[in-house]
């Protein structure tokens, strides 16, 4: 009997080992290693490990005083504040439209979902071309309607339009994802609930507000998290379209209009080669992500069982 218990454990270990080894080395260990790096100053990237200087919590102190980091968090928040409502709105609209008996139903669904699986970098390049000054097709459409505000700069060249333009790209690319979730939720609502409501004299609006929206709540909360995570992870679209710019004057200081935290992290670590500082930054971002996830769990749990 004891032999078979041992055997069971060993077999399990054999099946687990490839996954667990990679997990340990590349997903678990990095969290600790990153913490170690964040307490050091890394001067030369060529040979990272011979050039560590222990600085304690200096990186975190510097981060706290770093106005650019504060700005990048603010821009990340701005990104989230745009993508959450726009993403939910676009997804819900597509789902509600598709939730009708339509000819070509699956063709429309494919069309809306396809951009979600395509490469964000490529999509960013295409939109840069569409947004470009003078000849960009969107710039021209605006000119056609008599708006020449963007003619000289394009949409990515103006501080006030750059961030919404970048976010819009991600909204349109990702709308198919939310649409699938909302569609599944809509189709799960039993028709009998609506029929019962109709018997009680509920009108179209009351059915939407009292039945549909509450039943979609779990998906909506999930979409909020997806939006916040997209903001925290935003890098590729910024890299492809604006490289953090354009400049924006705030008081007597100059900042960059799409300088989100993900882009600042990349810049610190890959361009400026400050690994320790970037590691500290990662930790602050991780703390934010975990706080958001936990808040989500709290919000989701009691409300999901109808």
């Amino acid at each position, binding site marked *: 009997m004891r032999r078979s218990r041992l055997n069971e454990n060993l077999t*399990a270990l054999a099946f687990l080992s490839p996954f667990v080894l990679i997990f340990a080395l*590349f997903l678990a260990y990095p969290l600790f290693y990153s913490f170690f790096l964040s307490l050091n100053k890394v001067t030369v990237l060529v040979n990272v490990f011979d050039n560590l200087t222990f600085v304690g919590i200096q990186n975190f102190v510097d981060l706290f005083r770093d106005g650019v980091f504060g700005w990048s968090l603010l821009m990340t928040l701005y990104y989230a504040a745009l993508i959450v409502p726009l993403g939910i709105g676009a997804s819900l609209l597509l789902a509600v439209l598709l939730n009708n008996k339509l000819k070509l139903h699956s063709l429309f669904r494919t069309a809306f979902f396809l951009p979600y699986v395509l490469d964000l970098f490529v999509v960013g390049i295409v939109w840069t071309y569409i947004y470009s000054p003078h000849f960009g097709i969107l710039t021209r459409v605006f000119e056609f309607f008599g708006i020449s505000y963007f003619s000289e700069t394009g949409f990515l060249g103006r501080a006030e339009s750059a961030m919404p333009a970048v976010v819009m790209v991600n909204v349109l690319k990702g709308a198919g994802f939310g649409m699938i979730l909302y569609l599944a939720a809509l189709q799960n609502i039993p028709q009998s609930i609506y029929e019962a409501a109709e018997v009680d004299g509920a009108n179209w609006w009351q059915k939407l507000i009292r039945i549909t929206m509450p039943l979609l709540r779990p998906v909506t909360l999930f979409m909020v998290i997806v939006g916040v995570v997209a903001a925290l*992870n935003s890098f590729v679209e910024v890299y492809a379209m604006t490289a953090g710019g354009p400049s924006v004057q705030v008081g007597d200081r100059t900042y960059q209009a799409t300088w989100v935290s993900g882009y600042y992290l990349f810049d610190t670590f890959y361009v400026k080669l400050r690994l320790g500082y970037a590691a500290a930054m990662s930790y602050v971002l991780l703390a934010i992500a975990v706080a958001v996830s936990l808040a989500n769990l709290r919000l989701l749990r009691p409300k999901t069982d109808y």
Partner: protein
Amino acid sequence: MSGESKAAAIIRSVVIYTLITVAAIVVLFPFAWMILTAFKVPGTEFDLELMPRHPTIENFKRVFTEFGFLRYFMNSSIVAVSAALFATLFASLAAYAFSFKNFILKEKVFAIIIASMMVPGLMYVVPQFAIIKKLGWMNTYRAMVIPHLANVFGLFLLRQYMASIPRSLVDAAKIDGASDIQIYGRIVVPLSLPIIATLFLLTFQFHWSNFLWQLIVTNKESLYTVPVGLAMFKQQHEQLYTLKMAASAVSIVPISVIFVFAQRYFIEGVTKGAVKE
């Protein structure tokens, strides 16, 4: 039936079809515009015309002959296929252990692995990069693939699916003297094929488009994947719009083709992933 309600139904469907067509145009226009531009003669890409007046495939030819996109395609294929293959294999092996074996600390280990899903991907870039440096793996396929072979979401997806396989089936095989590897290979994997296909496609898609990681672990042109090659091309030839669009258009072909034929697996992955407890 009154004529009025019939009219209302017609109006309703006209409104719905109009809206949905407009939405489809908005969502797909960028891709159409990219493809149309890719067929235009260089220098005419900003002319006000929707269709190319003299369509040419010259741009596509040049992308592959004058620039290294053939090589980038090969690299992307190697990276995406091997990553998808091994990530799926490892996740399915681990999911088998979690589903059908009893071992110490099972649920604790599982909880720790799942908890790592909270960590945003960007957070891993700095330490993983340092580890790759330390291992001396810079500019290798290993560096591009191996760090991503523990697919936590995939493990979650597969374990959830395997829970629906009747235990009696596995127990009966055991009584007949089948080994674990036989049960895994002959019963569990065949029964889990739909979800395994889903995971394979999702990881393939992820690695085909993975940009940041491939950018930082390679600086040799011969190892560029398609997105990295595109980024470098964009930097050096900002003005070659038609070529840029041709390269972009070609780069989305593999995923688009796979998607059209295997759409339900992608959709499966999205819906299963969202309803995690």
